[in-house]
Structure formats: structure tokens, C-alpha cells
């Protein structure tokens, strides 16, 4: 059994206009193992998986599943031979119900009625999904969405499951839950292909790891014996960075202070933000930990003025900014790295220099009065590209043409350009590869040393612990506890975030 090959990919090559995503890739996955695939952003992992799942057709190469040569014209073909995929980005329709999302495309199995519902309910139990199956998917939190994705795969009876960065949005407890499910299923004979940028996760779960660099396989290793550092070197040929903060630069000057902040949707009794008090000092990084959906997003958007607080005040360097709009707050010195760069940070079809203006359209060097200063914007964009190592063929390309990591570097560069006194960094390195991650951390650290106040929100607890001077935990719209990053462990933090009682330390 152990030597049976569930999947064999040979000589896979896939070209996109201007990019070769995969070139001559070889990958062998044994039946019943968890096989990790690692690589930088844009190394071609997702592309390879999409090829295995029939969503994209390879230009060259062959695919064998369970020893048989197959050709997938579309995902249905792949599903038929028992392959399932959980995508890097959720593949869910917000407006359809949970049940509909799951049975879609597999109605042939149990219809869409009572039988299907029974089957799904059973799977929901198995994976720990507690949501009502008839509510629209948009009401689900990320962890539940991830579960829905996995149920989708199981519902179709897949034996070979591809998980493309499933842990990026999960907290440690949730990751553990997920891994527990995976281990159980592995014991039941399922095969997994697992993609993650978090190398300790890879080492924790995988039986084998294959590393991809620049579209080709560089090698296979045993995660039990290889160190994270070695793995990282295989991937990028450089050392694994860590988000350690060195000496404290915290001062006494409060930059951001919020008091009694409250946010309530019209017509809803529940407060999304409830009596939030917080202060960020110059030279300080305040980390906010919390399971997604507990109000961090709303807190940031309220501080940015994108939402109107129901109650409470926000002041910046002593000046009350509660009544100001987003632009005025930005002009007052807030830089903002939004959690979803494609939705909130960038104009994807516009050139890089136009993206440089976004949020700064009222200020030099990109504008003068009501007039845009295009030359100035271009010049400053070139500076950012240089300083922040944005890999791009030029500043005239559309932002969409950059990979995620490079897009993020551009955003960070921009938000640190306006001489901010406060930086709000929401998941600044989400989905960004190790190289870019290091660079972004370094820039945040430098700015902090120069006296910048930073409000950091991150799901990556190592990042949070490593960068922050203080950490507050957010739960159901409230700040429930404060932790010292010097002593707290990710596990403790995870407990506080989920509201679980903390194990008493001996």
C-alpha cells in the first residue's frame, strides 16, 4: 500500500502570457500520505494544483492517478476519479445557502433535498461545522467557511484531497482541529496534498515535502528530518527570517487613543464594537489578536473613518478626529495597510503610479491643489519600487500584473510615504512569501524606531508576538485581555482569543 502512487505528475509545463508558471514539474504522491508542496509566492504551486484538478490544462506533461493515465478537460473529470480541492481563495457563493454551496455540482449524488441535507449534516458533524445549513454563506466566519470547503470535497467522495494554503486564515486551535481531521482521514485512507507557507505546519503534518522554485521542482525531502531553515533555503536560497523585535522604542506620547468606542448596526441589538479603549504610543507596536470576525476589521475601519462609530471618541496626537472623514484622517497622519489589498488597497487595472496616489490624492508629491502631479507620482513610485524591492517590469504596468507579495510591498511603501504618525497594519504579510515578509517586517521595525505608532492586526501569531510591544486580545467586539509578547506563547494567545479557559501553568 505504502508504495502505491496516488498521483504522478510528469513533465508538467504551463505557460501564461508573459509567465511560465510551471516548467517540467515532477511530483509523486503516495496513496495515504500527506504530501506538502512548498515554494515562494508565484512559484507555481496553485497552478500545478489547478492542473491536477482539471481547472487548467497543461501545455505539456502527463497526469497519472492511481497508476492510470488521465486527461482532465474540466474539474468534473478530476472529481470523477476522486480528486477534490480546497482552493487558496474561498470558492464559495456568498448568496447561496451553506447547503447549496456544498451540493452544487454534485446534485447527482443525493439530489438537493432531504437526502442531501442528511448527508451534509453528517459530514458537518464530522468536521465540526455548527452552522445552520439554510443560512446564506456570507454569515459564516472563515473557519466555518474552510469547513464548508472541506465538506464540499468529502461530499463528492474524493479520496485525494488538495489543500491549497488552508491554514492562512486560521488560528492555532483551528489549525490543530484541521490537522486532527486530516490525520484521522489519512488513517481512513485519504491522500492529501497540502500547501502552506508556514514551514512548521508543514513539518507537523506532512509525510513528504516537495519544494518548487520558479516553476520547477527542486527536490523532495522528509519533513521529519529537515529543519525549517533548510526548507526555506531550498525554497528561496536564503535564510528564514523571523519577526523578532529588538530593543523597545516605546515612548510616553500617546498617538492614537480611542475611548468608549462603540459600533452598532442599525436595527441590530448586538454591538459589533463594545466599549473599546486603547492607546498606541509613539514608537510602539500594539498588536491586536483575535479570531477573525470578532470585530478587528470593524475596529480598524472605524478608526479609519470608513464606518461611523455609534459612540465614543478617537483622537490622534491629542486631536479629536471622531468627526472627520477617512481622507481627513489620512491627512492627519494615518497610514493604512488594509487587510485585503485587492479590495481595499489597490486599483487593479490602474498603473502602479496611479496606485501611488490612492489615499494621497490631496498631498504632495502626487498632487498640487486640485491638480494631479503625474510626474511627481511617477517619480515617487520609482522610489518605492526601488526602496521596497517591488519586482515589476515598470511603473506603467497595471497593479494586477504584480504578484501578491509585490503588490503588498507597494502598498506598504505607499503607506509609509506620507510621513504618518500612525500606521494601521492589517495582516501586512498575509499570503506573502518569506522573502517579502522579511522585507515588510524590516520596514515596520524601522518606522517604529523612527517614532511611528503602529496598530498591528494579524492572524499570524508568530508575527504578532514577534513584532508587538503589547498585545491586546479581542473577543466578540471587546478587548478582553492584554498580553506581554515577551512571555506569551501562541497557544496561550489562541486560548484567550477563543475565550477558552487557559491551562494553569505550573
Amino acid at each position, binding site marked *: 500500500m505504502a508504495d502505491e502512487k496516488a498521483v504522478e505528475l510528469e513533465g508538467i509545463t504551463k505557460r501564461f502570457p508573459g509567465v511560465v508558471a510551471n516548467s517540467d514539474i515532477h511530483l509523486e504522491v503516495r496513496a495515504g500520505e500527506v504530501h506538502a508542496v512548498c515554494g515562494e509566492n508565484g512559484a507555481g504551486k496553485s497552478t500545478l494544483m489547478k492542473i491536477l484538478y482539471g481547472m487548467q490544462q497543461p501545455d505539456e506533461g502527463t497526469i497519472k492517478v492511481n497508476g492510470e493515465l488521465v486527461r482532465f478537460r474540466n*474539474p468534473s473529470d478530476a472529481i470523477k476519479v476522486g480528486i477534490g480541492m480546497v482552493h487558496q481563495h474561498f470558492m464559495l457563493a456568498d448568496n*447561496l445557502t451553506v447547503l447549496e454551496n456544498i451540493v452544487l455540482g454534485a446534485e447527482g449524488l443525493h439530489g438537493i433535498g432531504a437526502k442531501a441535507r442528511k448527508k451534509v449534516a453528517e459530514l458537518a458533524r464530522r468536521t465540526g461545522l455548527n452552522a445552520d445549513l439554510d443560512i446564506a454563506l*456570507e454569515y459564516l466566519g472563515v473557519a466555518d467557511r474552510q469547513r464548508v470547503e472541506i465538506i464540499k470535497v468529502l461530499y463528492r467522495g474524493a479520496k485525494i484531497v488538495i489543500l491549497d494554503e488552508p491554514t492562512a486564515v486560521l488560528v492555532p486551535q483551528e489549525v490543530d482541529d484541521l490537522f486532527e481531521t486530516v490525520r484521522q482521514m489519512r488513517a481512513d485512507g485519504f491522500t492529501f496534498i497540502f500547501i502552506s507557507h508556514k514551514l512548521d505546519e508543514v513539518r507537523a503534518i506532512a509525510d513528504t515535502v516537495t519544494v518548487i522554485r520558479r516553476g520547477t521542482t527542486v527536490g523532495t525531502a522528509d519533513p521529519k528530518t529537515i529543519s525549517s531553515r533548510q526548507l526555506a533555503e531550498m525554497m528561496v536560497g536564503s535564510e528564514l527570517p523571523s519577526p523578532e523585535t529588538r530593543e523597545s522604542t516605546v515612548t510616553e506620547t500617546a498617538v492614537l487613543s480611542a475611548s468608549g468606542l462603540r459600533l452598532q448596526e442599525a436595527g*441590530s441589538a448586538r454591538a459589533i464594537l463594545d466599549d473599546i479603549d486603547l492607546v498606541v504610543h509613539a514608537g510602539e507596536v500594539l498588536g491586536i489578536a483575535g479570531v477573525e470576525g470578532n470585530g478587528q476589521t470593524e475596529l480598524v475601519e472605524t478608526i479609519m473613518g*470608513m464606518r461611523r462609530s455609534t459612540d465614543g471618541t478617537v483622537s490622534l496626537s491629542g486631536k479629536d478626529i471622531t468627526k472627520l472623514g477617512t481622507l481627513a484622517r489620512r491627512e492627519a497622519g494615518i497610514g493604512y495597510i488594509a487587510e485585503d489589498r485587492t479590495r481595499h488597497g489597490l486599483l487593479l487595472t490602474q498603473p502602479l503610479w496611479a496606485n501611488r496616489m490612492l489615499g494621497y490624492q490631496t498631498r504632495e508629491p502626487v498632487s498640487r491643489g486640485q491638480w494631479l502631479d503625474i510626474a511627481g507620482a511617477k517619480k515617487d513610485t520609482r522610489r518605492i519600487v526601488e526602496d521596497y524591492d517591488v519586482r515589476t517590469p515598470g511603473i506603467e504596468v497595471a497593479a494586477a500584473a504584480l504578484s501578491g507579495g509585490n503588490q503588498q510591498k507597494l502598498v506598504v511603501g505607499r503607506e509609509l510615504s506620507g510621513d504618518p504618525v500612525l500606521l494601521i497594519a492589517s495582516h501586512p504579510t498575509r499570503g506573502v512569501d518569506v522573502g517579502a515578509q522579511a522585507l515588510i517586517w524590516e520596514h515596520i521595525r524601522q518606522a517604529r524606531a523612527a517614532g511611528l505608532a503602529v496598530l498591528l492586526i494579524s492572524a499570524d501569531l508568530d508575527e504578532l508576538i514577534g513584532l508587538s510591544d503589547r498585545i491586546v486580545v479581542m473577543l466578540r467586539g471587546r478587548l478582553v485581555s492584554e498580553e506581554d509578547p515577551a512571555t506569551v506563547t501562541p497557544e496561550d494567545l489562541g486560548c484567550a482569543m477563543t475565550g477558552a479557559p487557559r491551562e494553569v501553568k505550573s
Partner: protein
Amino acid sequence: MTAGIADSPVAGPVTMAVPPKRRKIPGWLSGVLWAVGAIAVLSTASYLTGNSDLTSSTTTQTALRLALPILLAALGGLWAERAGVVNIGLEGMMILGTWGAAWGSYHGGVWVGLLVAILFGAIGGLLHAIATVTFGVNHIVSGVAINLLGLGITKYLAHLIFEPLSGNPRQSPVVPKFDTYSATGLTNWLADLETQQRVVLSDVAGILRGLLTQVAPLTMIAVLLVPISYIVLWRTRFGLRLRSCGENPVAAESLGVNVYRFKYIAVLISGGLAGMGGASLVLLKDGADYLENQTNGRGYIGLAAMIFGNWRPGGLAAGSALFGYTDGLQLSGRGPAVLALLYAAVLLLVIVVVVQLFRRKWFAAGASVLAAGLLYAIYFSVDELPRDLTPYAPHFVTLIVLAVASQRLRMPQADGFIYKRGQGS
């Protein structure tokens, strides 16, 4: 313009903070409640103003008649947009339908006429699908082009084919029309009831009688298409797949749904329904045969009714009915009837005020009081509404209802987006 008609550029923040809301009452029940409420308001207004037009059988019959093409166009819009294709070409497809209906009916009788109308509409749909689905053209561009093509081609064909028959390049010869049927026993009884002038009872009788007399098969089919659309789109696997293409085509694709195929099917059905809407202008008793420009923008009104109805069959039926009703009322009852309707609006606003006070929405209640007062002042002070404006009563009513009703419109999430196979993130 990536999103076609993106519904709300007023950007809301991302995260869904609203906790899951369970619908306490099922959709059909709330529909019934709304209908009962509407009848109650209308019959009260009719009683207080002494204008029986508000609930007469003639008015409802007319309303049904005028709502029909709008309803069918709106259903056409629904099918396309549920699959993610904005269809502003409904008008053109409808025009194609009018021509096809007349031509088919002339040569092979009403049913052939209906069939040809559907076919012609579907050809318009096919063109729209080729442009938007296969070539990924902006949906509005394609729709606008189809409106032009529909008009141009039918004019050309009428010139070529109808002129020798009718002597008129803008009109077809007289073509056979659908027979109509009445539930005679019932309607006679209802007629008695209606003439007795009893409060509420006579009103309900009038409304029902209007819906049950002289009904053509086409009318029945069209009305039935509302629940049928609902069932097919929301209760079958075919419908689920189709809707998934309008919500998240990439997800649908990743689950093995052939998005192109469903989009094609949806837009073809959409065109067919619009063509049927055209047929309803031609093939009903008292219909107009083919007449150039006879659709008069009804395709656009259908589109508006669909948005009004929040991309749902029941809602768009309500929108079409509202429009048809008001139009029928103003055309047959003219100024006095519209004035009575104004009175009904005041009553409605009073109810709204009570509800808002109950819900402790002071601002909304205040605004409604103001509006009610204003309308009542108009009602009280004028004996006759301006003659130039009464013909547009349905348009005013639509605007006012939209402005008053809370806007929780939700278009299919990927509506108007251009989808390309294998391009998903």
C-alpha cells in the same frame, strides 16, 4: 466598467457583521400578507373616496393585461441576471418577439405565433450570449446593440414581408388572436357581489373577477411562469447550477459546472421570455398585431420591475403588477382614479408611520408623516391632477415606492461580470 450595472458603488465595508437572520415567515406567505394589506388599503380608499375604479374588475383586468408584457420581460431579465448576464437587450428581444408572433400567427395560428415569438426572442438571446459569454463583451454594450438590431431587423423584415400583405410597412396584417376563457359560474357570482357595493367584499370580488374573466392561455402561461421560474431556479439542481453562475462562476466551475452552458441556456430562456412578452402585445384579444415601436420601452420597464423585485420572481411580479395596475388605473379611470390612489398612498403612509413608531425609528416615522401630510394636502387641495402628468402615474408610483421602501436589494454577486473559463484566482 467591469461590473456592468453595479448596484451600489456606495461602498459598504467588507465584513458581514449582521448575525444570521432567520426568515420567520416564508416568502409566499409574506406575499399573501402584502396582497391582503394592499387590498385592504385600496378598498378602504375606494370606500372613503367613493371611487370604485380602485378595485373594479375592469381595473384588475386591465392591470393584468398591461402588466403581462412587463412581467414577461422582467422574468426574462431574471433568468439572465440570475446566471450573471445583465440583459438590457430585453427591449430588442421583445421587439423581435412581436414580429415573430405576428408572422407565425399569420401563417400558422396563435400557437405557432407564440412559438415563433419565443424563437425570435431566443435568437436575440443567442446573439447576446455569443457576445457576452463567448466573447466576453461588456453586457451593456451588447444589450444596447441588440436593442438597435432588434428594431432595425424587424423594421426591415416588416418592410420586406408584411408590406405586401398589409400594404403597410409598419404593420402586419390582422393575425389570429388567442381565445379567452372565463370561469363563468364563479365570475357571475363575483359580478353579483361586486355590484352589491359591499365594503371589502365587493372590492375583493371585483379584483378576483378581473383576474378570472377573459383570460387567454398566454396570460395563464405567463402568470404560471412566475411560480415555475421560482421552482426551477430555487428548487431544482438545474436552477442551483444556473444561479451559481450568477453568484460565483469560478466556484461553480471548480465544482464541475459548465458555466458557459448554463449562461447560454439562461440567456436563451431570457430571450425566449422577452419574445413571449412581445407576443403578449400581439396575440391577445384586442392585441395590436405587429406594429412598429409598439413595445414603447416596456423592455426597460421590465428591467426596472426586475430590479424593483430584488431579482426574485415574486418581487418582480409585484413590481409588474404595481406598474400595470397604476397604468391601467390612470388610463381607464384617469385623474379621479389617480387622485383616489393618492388617497390610498396617504393611508399606506399612515400605516408605515405606525409601524415605524412601533419599531422606534423616529426619523423614518417623521419622514413618513411629512410625506403623508404632503400627499394629503395635494389630495385635499386639487380637484384634478395635471392632465399632462397623470399618464406617468405608474412611473411616479414606482419611484415613490422605491424611495419609501427600505432598500435591501441584492443583485446576484457576479451579475454583469465577465467570466472566462480557467481564469479564476
